[in-house]
């Protein structure tokens, strides 16, 4: 599928008018998003209550959320069919967010230690 879209894209690279999203593909992406959301609900309502305190539940949610984000950005926002330069210009800066996550998670561990020392 991707090689097919790549050739279509090259053929029309003269102007910004691409045919990346047909009605069929739009519906397909919609069903994927709906399916992933349904899986999240299944995990939250059926699997999670059986395993209270399990640490592997949240990573499942986060991975599924990132998959949904990929489909929204890639297909609905059409980024997958843009030039590589634009894709990199948008995706690489987003990676800085990982830095903030690491820094603040680390900081929050310090806060909770501090809280328990102070007896809060």
């Amino acid at each position: 599928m991707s090689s097919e879209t790549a050739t279509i894209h090259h053929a029309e690279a003269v102007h910004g008018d691409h045919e990346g999203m047909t009605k069929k593909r739009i519906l397909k992406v919609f069903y994927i998003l709906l399916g992933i959301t349904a899986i999240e609900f299944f995990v939250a309502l059926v699997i999670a209550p059986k395993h209270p305190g399990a640490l592997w539940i949240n990573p499942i949610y986060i991975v599924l959320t990132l998959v949904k984000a990929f489909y929204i950005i890639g297909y609905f926002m059409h980024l997958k069919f843009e030039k590589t330069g634009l894709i990199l210009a948008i995706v690489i800066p987003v990676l800085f967010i990982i830095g903030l996550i690491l820094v603040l998670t680390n900081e929050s561990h310090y806060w909770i230690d501090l809280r328990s020392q102070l007896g809060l």
Partner: protein
Amino acid sequence: MSTVVTQQVDEVKSTPWSGGRSPFNVEYGKMMMWFFLLSDAFTFSSLLISYGALRFSAPTWPTPSLVFQSVPGTSIEHGAPLVFVGLMTLILILSSVTMVLAVEAGHRNARKEVVGWMIATVIGGLMFLGCQALEWNHLHSEGFWWSAIPNAETLKEFFKEGVPLGQQQMSSHQFANLFFTITGFHGFHVFSGVVINIIITINVLLGTYEKRGSYLMVEKVGLYWHFVDLVWVFVFTFFYLV
């Protein structure tokens, strides 16, 4: 041999970055919309990461399946976790789909179809805002607001058993502030998205883009609208599921 060298020197470079054309092959306004959305992504991630940090640093936190277990607007008060927010998520994803369909119709210069899908998108956005108003009203009626939490009796319902009242009150304060700030900021984006969509729909109706020969503006507001949907996907995960 010398002729070959001359030919190589005279050859005009035609790579995307050799000048004379847009290397990203997108119109200026569309590219700027992408960069605006990138900055907005940083704003939202700062808010969500602060939420994560405060939640990690708290010894306890209100359990989402206990806080969000009612269906506001109906008589269901207990035992329906995630039902209402599931409806909200479905509405927003559907309005995203109608938005792509509007963009797709724009590529075919089908004005009537663009109008139809744009109106559907506006209605989806308004329905989402209505649901959010009900959700806020419900939490407010329980006693939650910025810097306000329910009384000790109500608060107890939102926590696992055995959590001391002091911890309950502290984390509920943080929860209330973060919830209303983040969903409020997102809701404000939905509201501006609806307003922008209405303006674009009027322009389509007036034939502005038909005269211009391109429905690129629909594509640009489409990007914004999908971004709002994208943010909701994260808000949903981190407030309602985790």
